[in-house]
């Protein structure tokens, strides 16, 4: 390449001077946008897949090579450079802008996250690679080649610097990935629209071009406006990890976060499980009941819409029927449809022995006439931090439950932390006793929560269980027995009975947990 080549006559660029300095501002902006998309993709991949070195390296590698491909492809564009440039901006705006929301959806709803990731990185890289060569060719009549190269490349690198500083310091903490990517898509589209003014003389029918710009801007703007539904900026400050899924069902806000190689489910901001250690919780919740009543055939699960308790239940070959009653269809759908949930619960809710009922468990056990008595009931409700949950821990609930059980049935009840909320824990135990159950409280460590407690109960007297299935990840015959011993700081304290008309547990629970938050 030399200066003489740049003198070749080319279409409509002749005779109309362009405002080169304003176009250099575009260079700065598109350079910043280009780097942001790369950072978004790299960050998102490390969040969701872990191993950030690998993710960033592969994303950068694919991205840079795609840029090379774009630069190479630019030589096949001959005519209408200005028009191509505007189109290019709009394409980058759409693909780059929507990259983060698309990737989150792909992660939550498909098995094809990696192909989607690299296809998007490839596409954005190729388009970004086309931008600078085309812009330089547009400007070559206005600026001497050596100045052109110097200025364009300088601004390109400064833009990249600005983006790389803004991203970790301002954009990620304040906006999060989804809004950052949409915002920079918007910026790309704005550059496109602005170019229709700067390059007016070189463009064909302006009205259609500008209309396209406006449509793209509107799409991204709507995306941005709707982004709060997906992730709330406020929430991102609460959750330490990236939100990969969020949904407001009529009953609760379901949020899933992902980070450090595991994922977590939150209901109304309260952690329900972390994939890292939920096996400890669910093994402890389920297997002691079977140890007391081996050969149980009919199992009732109240709550537990994540299907993780059912996964443990189905490890017992004698089980013939499991009825899971969970209030929220959004929760049970997520457990059956979302790939990472289905992987974790091993498709438990899709097992032919399992029937899922979406109903308020208390109303269901009071009104249902279709199911025969159960041998085991697993009661796995969120902690009693609201009256609508507190009712599920009352004598009324346990009495209604007892009516649905065989005379020697066994129940296990998740009962919050005997360490963090000692009175609440023993209040649940006392309430079960007041409802006519014999109880055996127990506990274990679930690092994501704290020390966690359960109450094993039966209408008939029973002994502390000593045997469990082989091949569990946490529970063994030895650790089973150990769970039933309470150290001094968690030992029994006197507690009131939780009734519908006093709901003492909700008050106890909120005041006890307040100390830890």
């Amino acid at each position, binding site marked *: 390449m030399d200066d003489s080549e740049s003198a070749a006559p080319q279409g409509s660029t002749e005779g109309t001077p362009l405002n080169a300095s304003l176009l250099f501002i575009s260079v700065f902006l598109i350079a910043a946008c280009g780097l942001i998309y790369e950072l978004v993709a790299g960050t998102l991949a490390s969040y969701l897949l872990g191993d950030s070195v690998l993710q960033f390296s592969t994303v950068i590698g694919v991205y840079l090579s795609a840029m090379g491909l774009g630069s190479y492809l630019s030589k096949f564009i001959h005519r209408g450079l200005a028009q191509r440039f505007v189109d290019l901006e709009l394409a980058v705006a759409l693909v780059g802008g929507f990259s983060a929301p698309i990737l989150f959806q792909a992660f939550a709803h498909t098995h094809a996250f990696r192909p989607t990731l690299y296809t998007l990185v490839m596409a954005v890289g190729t388009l970004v690679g086309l931008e600078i060569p085309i812009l330089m060719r547009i400007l070559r009549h206005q600026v001497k080649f050596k100045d052109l190269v110097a200025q364009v490349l300088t601004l390109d690198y400064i833009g990249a610097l600005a983006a790389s500083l803004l991203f970790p310091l301002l954009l990620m903490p304040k906006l999060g990935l989804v809004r950052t990517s949409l915002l920079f898509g918007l910026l790309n589209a704005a550059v496109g629209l602005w170019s229709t003014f700067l390059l007016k003389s070189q463009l064909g029918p302006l009205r259609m071009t500008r209309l396209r710009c406006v449509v793209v801007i509107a799409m991204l703007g709507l995306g941005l406006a709707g982004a709060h539904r997906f992730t709330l900026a406020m929430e991102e400050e609460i959750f330490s990890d990236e939100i990969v899924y969020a949904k407001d069902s*009529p009953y609760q806000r379901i949020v899933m976060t992902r980070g450090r190689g595991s994922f977590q489910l939150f209901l109304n901001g309260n952690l329900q499980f972390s994939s890292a250690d939920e096996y400890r919780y669910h093994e402890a919740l389920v297997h002691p009941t079977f140890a007391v009543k081996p050969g149980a055939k009919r199992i009732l699960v109240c709550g537990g819409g994540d299907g993780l308790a059912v996964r443990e239940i189905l490890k017992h070959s004698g089980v013939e029927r499991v009825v899971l009653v969970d*209030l929220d269809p959004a929760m049970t759908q997520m457990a059956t449809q979302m790939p990472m949930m289905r992987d974790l619960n091993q498709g438990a809710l899709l097992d032919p022995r399992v029937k899922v009922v979406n109903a*308020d468990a208390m109303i269901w056990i009071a009104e249902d006439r279709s199911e025969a008595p159960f041998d085991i009931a697993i009661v796995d409700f969120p902690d009693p931090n609201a009256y*609508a949950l507190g*009712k599920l821990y009352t004598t009324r609930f346990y009495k209604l439950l007892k009516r649905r059980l065989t005379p020697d049935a066994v129940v296990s009840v998740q009962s919050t932390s005997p360490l963090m909320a000692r009175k609440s824990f023993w209040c649940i135990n006392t309430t079960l006793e007041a409802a006519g159950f014999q109880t055996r409280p127990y506990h274990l460590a679930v690092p994501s929560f704290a020390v966690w407690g359960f109450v094993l109960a039966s209408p008939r007297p029973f002994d502390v269980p000593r045997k469990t299935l082989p091949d569990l990840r946490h529970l063994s015959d030895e650790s089973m027995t150990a769970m039933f011993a309470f150290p001094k700081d968690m030992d029994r304290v006197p507690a009131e009975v939780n*009734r*519908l008309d*006093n709901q003492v547990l909700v008050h106890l629970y909120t005041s006890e947990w307040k100390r830890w938050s």
Partner: protein
Amino acid sequence: METVVVKRRTLLSTAAALPLAGLACRRSRRFPFGGELLGPSLDLGHLVRDGALPEPDHFQPIGVLIAGGGIAGLSAAWHFEGAGFRDYLLLEMESEVGGTSRSGQNGVSAYPLAAHYVPAPTKEIGPLVKLLDECGVIEGYDATGEPIFGEQDVVRSPDERIFFHGQWWEGLYLHAGESPEDVRQYQAFFREIDRWVAWKDSKERKAFALPRSKGSDAPEVRALDALSFKAWLDARGFTSERLLWLLDYAVRDDFGSRLDTTSAWAGLFYFAARKQGPGEESRPLLTWPEGNGFLVHHLLKCCRERVRTGHAVTRIEPRADGTVLVTAWNTRENRAVGFLAQRVIFAGPVQMAGRVIPALREARGKAFFEAFPATPWLVANLTLRNRPKEHGFPLAWDNVIRHSAGLGYVVATHQSLRDHGPTVWTYYHALAGPDPKADWLKLAAMDWRACAALVVEDLRKAHPDIEAHIARLDVMRWGHAMIRPRPGLLFSPELELARQPFRNVHFAHSDLSGFALFEEAQDHGIRAAEEVMAFRG
């Protein structure tokens, strides 16, 4: 723009303070939901008053005729049935029995049309304990013989909340932000109540018992009826705005009157009669989705064969031989029917007795009947598709808006534990103005839209998006919702006289206690039944 909105709000809340300002909204409001305007049969009332009805062909002989199927009439019938006495008929002019304890039902829930709870009785209130036991509400009795109530029938916690300063707070009395003087007065008032709870007369009777017939009539108790609740509070230096609001709310809610139109006896009764001993909590409340309709259903089940609904008693004539001629209008067949009764229990309001018993009207004189003013009420049932937005303390059973002329709303699905999705709210508004008759004329003139506007504007203070959630809004207008225990009424010669039988016509109604409570209506029903059975042996 903001100021305009605020002004409109202020205007509307002021408007709601004049109970009938709904009239003003009538022209402009269009609601995206429908509903019905229910109320007493006005035509029927006129027929009775004009006396222009044809005579019946013959008079069917009957032992006892009960005129009126509210709680008093039904309780009389229930008592007869319990005693094995079957020679009676109960006539009710409406298509359903229950009076102000009636209820409705739709696809979402059953709901009350007015009365919606009773305080859990102690063993002393035998008849109510017996009734509740029959209804399956009592699970057993403790060592001292006190009934143990089913958890599901006691109001579920949280029971009350109040909307104030843009959000909901727990309880009816707002403790947040009270001054030391507020605290002092609040405690002083309840110390005074405890003093009365502990008080016994020389016959070991409590000052305030339920039903009131079991309480004391000692001079120091009677003296409380001579002054208004307001005068009583003034004399003791109670000035706390919060406390006075709570007390005013209490009397509006239970008596349909204000501090200055309520007897001090009634004001103290409200608080003292609900406590078993000094320092104790008030008795828990029993309630059901359909309110006291739950009790009505049971009472009706006991006497259904001898109940005739759609029979409006238009004339009662005691005859010289001791029998009583009763004329009624069968509203379904539009014909007059006659009965020749040995005894009659008139189980309606005192004022109505004056209208259908000409001899009584003559004997007592016009002024006598004017001693029994009754408060009209507007009760609306709102069927909601979903729960509206709100801030603060979560939905309770009873939800009261602090700056409102209304009494707030009760959630019908509270006891059925349905905490999500569709529900029915029962909204109450007592027309507690100084002139009940004028209030009633205005209420009777309001159409559905005017009533709906009144309700929606009030609820919008706490739930700005309420309108979008309403599937339907049914309005019940009660002309004689409850008698007003004005100062001087409760120990008046008129009230004493009204309880006395009149030429083989016996009287049973909560009017005869001076305030409308289930226990009072039941007490009078049983007393009248006893009077009649004593005569018949």
